[in-house]
């Protein structure tokens, strides 16, 4: 076991840390959330130039091919100021789905532009009855003369409003709930048979509901065999949420600790009150658990032992929900009145944590998945 960072990792983390501090303080997120897309195209291009968009993409597809922990370390830093660019939807979800299933030609065609910043990807898997189950696919794909035609409705596609290219799960066989018969398709988001509704989310970002009315789709990988990859990609998403969550919680914890030191009431700094001190320690306990669990998730996200991967991800994701809700709710409580205004940053973290705990499966879903082994 070894949890020390390599020199390369240190440099990477350092670069992101500097970027976050200088170029993306929390005030930038606050400003962006009222803009149309919720993020800055300019910053996105900057991220592309820095090479970040290729971090986990295999070298064969011209990415950096770094282990997922490196992406997680980057996301942990980005989480500290809630950097709003669609890194996870485009790189981790859409990008890795194509990297894991696409032909060399497809990888070059879709991932190249994504990594260069000229194309954005998103993953469309959730549906009205799927909740967090990737196998409950009611959207269908029928093979036609010019490829596949997709029919159905995908919900809560993260950053699906600004993506130009969607990776969509659809059923080419079997019935909803079956493991077999799920396929992945690349879908041009701007074609006329795709209708998107842009949605604001609680964390000041955007998602889309996507109506597919006979939309053209291009098959990725083998027909009907995509469920394992889809699960793998969603687990990467969960690991990404854990990583971003760890950074977020560190930031909100520090903010709260500092507030306890600085805020005066009853002639005393409120951090001197034992009941608040103990609460702060309980927050620290959960923070440390979330930080450790995020390492577990990131280091096992690519494990070849699938049950080990799922178990680790589910441990970390449920820890993020349990610990994250506690830390962010208490952060607001300890801030008192200003904590429940939209003015103070603590609420931004609170809301983002709520989104992270839902995305890629909530606590109940992941505990249920853990229990499958019993």
């Amino acid at each position, binding site marked *: 076991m070894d949890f020390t960072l390599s020199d390369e990792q240190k440099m990477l983390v350092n670069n992101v840390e500097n970027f976050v501090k200088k170029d993306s303080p929390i005030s930038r997120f606050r400003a962006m959330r009222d803009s149309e897309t919720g993020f800055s195209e300019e910053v996105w291009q900057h991220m592309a130039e820095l090479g970040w968009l290729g971090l986990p993409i295999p070298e064969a597809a011209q990415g950096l091919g770094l282990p997922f922990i490196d992406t997680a370390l980057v996301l942990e830093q980005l989480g500290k100021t809630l950097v709003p660019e669609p890194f996870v939807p485009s790189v981790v979800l859409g990008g890795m789905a194509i990297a894991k299933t696409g032909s060399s030609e497809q990888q070059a065609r879709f991932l190249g532009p994504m990594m260069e910043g000229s194309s954005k990807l998103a993953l469309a898997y*959730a549906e*009205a*009855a*799927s*909740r*967090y*189950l990737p196998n*409950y696919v009611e959207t269908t794909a029928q093979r036609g003369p010019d490829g596949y035609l997709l029919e159905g409705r995908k*919900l*809560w596609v993260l950053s699906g409003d600004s993506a130009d290219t969607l990776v969509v799960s659809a059923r080419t066989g079997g019935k*909803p*709930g079956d493991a077999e018969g799920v396929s992945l398709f690349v879908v041009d988001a701007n074609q006329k048979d795709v209708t998107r*509704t842009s*949605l*604001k*989310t*609680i*964390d*000041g970002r955007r*998602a889309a*509901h996507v109506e597919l009315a006979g939309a053209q789709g291009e098959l990725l990988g083998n027909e009907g065999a995509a469920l394992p990859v889809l699960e793998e990609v969603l687990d990467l998403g969960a690991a990404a949420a854990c990583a971003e969550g760890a950074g977020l919680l560190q930031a909100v914890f520090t903010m709260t600790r500092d507030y306890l030191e600085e805020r*005066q*009431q*009853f*002639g005393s700094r409120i951090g001197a*009150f034992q*009941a*608040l001190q103990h609460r702060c320690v309980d927050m620290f306990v959960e923070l440390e658990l979330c930080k450790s669990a995020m390492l577990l998730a990131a280091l096992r996200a690519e494990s070849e032992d699938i049950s080990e991967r799922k178990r680790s991800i589910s441990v970390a994701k449920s820890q993020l929900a349990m610990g994250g*809700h506690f830390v962010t*709710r208490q952060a*607001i*409580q300890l801030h*008192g*009145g200003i*904590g*429940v*205004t*939209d*003015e103070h940053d603590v*609420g931004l973290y*609170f*809301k983002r944590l*709520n*989104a992270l705990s*839902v*995305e890629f499966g*909530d*606590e*109940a879903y992941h505990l*249920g998945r853990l229990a499958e082994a019993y």
Partner: protein
Amino acid sequence: MDLSFSPEHQKFREEARAWIQSAMPEEMAKKASVAGYFENDERLQWHRIMYEKGWAAPNWPQEYGGAGLDPTERFILSEELALSGAPPLSPFGLRMVGPLIVQFGTDAQRARFLPKILNGEETWCQGYSEPGAGSDLASLQLTAEDDGQGHFVLNGQKTWTTYAQYAQWIFVLARTDRSAKKRQAGISFLLCDLSAPGVRVEPFLTLGGTPAFCDTYFDNVKVPKENLVGELNGGWSMAKALLGHERVGIGDVGGATRTLRNALRIAKNTRVGDRTLLEDPTVRIKIARLEAKIEALRMVIYRTLAGAQLGQAPGPESSILKIRGSELSQETGELAMELMGHNALAWFNEEGVVPEYEQWVASNFCYERATTIYGGTNEIQRNIIAKNLLRLPSA
């Protein structure tokens, strides 16, 4: 001992429920059924309807326009209102400054202010908290200096002056004697016209994205001396009495009950594969646990209420209402959020993106973080109970 409401009280409940249903305009009823956010004009509209019915100020003495209801009827009415989802009437006039003016005001003050509070013509807001004086209210800094010409001159800032942007009047605690030795001394209770020169109101959004909060700034604002309520420098005890009112929050489980019912509705209507979410035993048990907690607290309320009906002061059991009531408000909202799944991501989108009964869940859930903070944080409540009721030693 008897746990049932008397036949008269049961009848009153049925009447109240029927009246609320019939009195609410259609649009309002629709919003009420999904626990939506009411705009100011909707709240005023409902105030007027309640006023016409004579129920705007159930707690006031009848001579000033009170409803003439006994404590149990008042409880039933507030519970039915909460369950109906009707717009909550602004409490600052009706439940706070009004009763205070009744108790401590002059006849002239009563005649000037009470009727317009009652009929909704003048809306009030509360000027207690300041940026540096939240839990520690006694450290407030707003000054009121006697200008020798019949006025107090206000300078300073109040915050969390909820809905000040819609209000005509504000009641403030201000420091009238800066030389007082005890910080609680030297504070007076003043009534200030928000249209007076030098008053500036700046609304800001709550965590729930609604425009409920304001900062209110005072720059040499003149308040006529006749707007002092009670003794000069005697505002603290009145303020504390008011906080007590605010803390009881006796109707609180109405809101939690309503939110839990909504959670049940969400569970029933949410599909998970071939089943509904409500078929999941882990979901059922979560709902049931909150039901048990709410019903246990409801019994505490009933005990308090039965005492009040006999004219007894609230017993020790009532001290837990604020703490547990606010926790349950939050826990029911948290459960509703959890049950919504991905729909919990929704934030102020157009109708139809999520079912209408889910439309306001996230905003309410966020705003409800305030319930363990306002009216004295739950930590302050615990300090008070530890000291005054449990008589634990002080450091």
